[in-house]
């Protein structure tokens, strides 16, 4: 099993969600996050320079069977490319999963 964390821009979420659903990956979690930017953006607030070095991002997490990893990554990429393709995806080994209500373990729980 693999655990996938994607850091995306908020505007990418609708298309990414659509592609994941389309690929039959229907369980994932989304949270608001802040991410660094390569170069701080200059803004002005009440005549004072504001350097914005953290911008709003979303963090999308999902767990998949090994065989489904490529499908998930492709779906993420297709969705993200619709809005410029910014962002990164991190994949790690997933040691265990448990569904709380019935206690199922492992890939059967996914």
């Amino acid at each position, binding site marked *: 099993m693999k655990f996938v964390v994607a850091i995306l821009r908020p505007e990418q979420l609708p298309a990414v969600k659509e592609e994941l659903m389309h690929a039959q990956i229907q369980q994932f979690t989304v949270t*608001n996050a*802040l991410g660094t930017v390569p170069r701080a953006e200059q*803004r*002005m*607030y*009440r*005549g*004072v*320079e*504001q350097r*914005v*070095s*953290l*911008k*709003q991002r979303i963090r999308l997490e999902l767990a998949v069977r090994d065989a489904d990893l490529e499908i998930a990554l492709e779906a993420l990429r297709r969705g993200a490319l619709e809005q410029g393709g910014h962002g990164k995806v991190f994949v790690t080994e997933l040691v265990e999963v448990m569904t709380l209500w019935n206690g199922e373990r492992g890939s059967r729980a996914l």
Partner: protein
Amino acid sequence: MTAIRTPVTAPAIIISSSVHWTWIKEEYMERVARLVSCLPAGLLLVPSAVLAASEDAEQVTSFNALDTLWVLMAAILVFFMQTGFGMIESGLVRAKNASNVLMKNLVDFSFAALGFFAFGYAIMFGGSGAFVGTTGWFLVGAESAADGVPVEAFWLFQAVFAGTAATIVSGSVAERFKFTSYMLVSFLVTAFLYPVVGHWVWGGGWLGDYGFHDFAGSTVVHAVGGSCALVAAYLVGPRLGRFREDGTVAPILGHNLPIATLGMFILWVGWYGFNAGSTLGMGDPALVARIALNTTLAPAAGVLTAMTVAWVRFGKPDLSIALNGALGGLVGITAPCAVVGAGSSIAIGVVAGFIVVWGIDLLNKVRIDDPVGAIPVHGFNGVWGTLAVGLFGQQALGSPSDGLFLGGGFAQLGSQALGVVACVSFTLAAAWVMLKAVDSVMGLRVSHETELKGLDLDEHGVESYGGFQIFLTD
């Protein structure tokens, strides 16, 4: 013996004609007696004198219903401005200090009501002494300065003005001023400091003899409030992290611009009571209408000017500066609203818009931290509006003499300058002494720890947005 027309409690009245209302003597006497008896013993020095005086009191007084209605309605509009101040100030501070600034707005008005009842009104309107009034403490024996309007209505109108002057301070010292010290300061301002200046200008004091014209209070309310705000912001020091070691200024973002914008609109609405209500009656509908027009044009010009100046200088039309532009225009038109034409109002608003942006810049340069722009809006534009009478004022509309731009020479401008310099320097000095005294007794500023955690939590034990996730950005 001076006629006593008015007890503190609501008068019992009968309608004797369509407009003239008459007191019932017995009811009147009973209410005076009840008032005196329910005050703590020793609090008042005057009850026996009052009872004696009431024996000779004028028993029938005529009031004008329309004028009274107008003054009460205007007072209620001006009272609503407290909401406006609360909203704009809480919107322009960080979420962790929103409740604290609202609490200050609520409490300073409450002190204004009680302080202006007990002492303020007497100092401001109690007789024609050169520097202070001395009669009518606790409104006992107080008289209305508006013809045909009961003293209670006139008092209310004046009390909400005192509250406005006081609440200006809460914005400039937001996010670091200690709550207890703020309470004491707002009591002192509304009970003593503001009424002294008010007496000089509106209460029959010395400035009235010099042809000084401040129709609705650019000086009396706004320059006084702005001066207190300046001294307080200077003495309490900037918010932590506002001014960096390298000389640059850190932006500290307001957390709710929609609420701040609502606050600005509420203030603008309230200003129709503030300016047009200062006619104290509907005797001259054309005057009231002209003031309402001017009170619309100047802030509109202020918004567009401040927005444009900020756009050109900083790259984007900044909402919070545009809000300040509206308020700057409103403060600017407050003194001259009755005696200038529509074109002049627009010119006054345009200059006010420039002053707002320039003032925000200036304070950043001299390292005075004013989170909401109260000092440029009320202080600097209060001075500007007062001087504008000397530039644009028309004798034909009621100004003591024609202004400089109407061929009247420098006479009126000189009177205006004298008045505003006198009032502002007195206020700066008095506020300095007052705040230094409060500082030495109880301190002005919260601890660093409290400031970092937010004043809501440490000073009041609440979260303004319990249950909401505050999304921090940087």
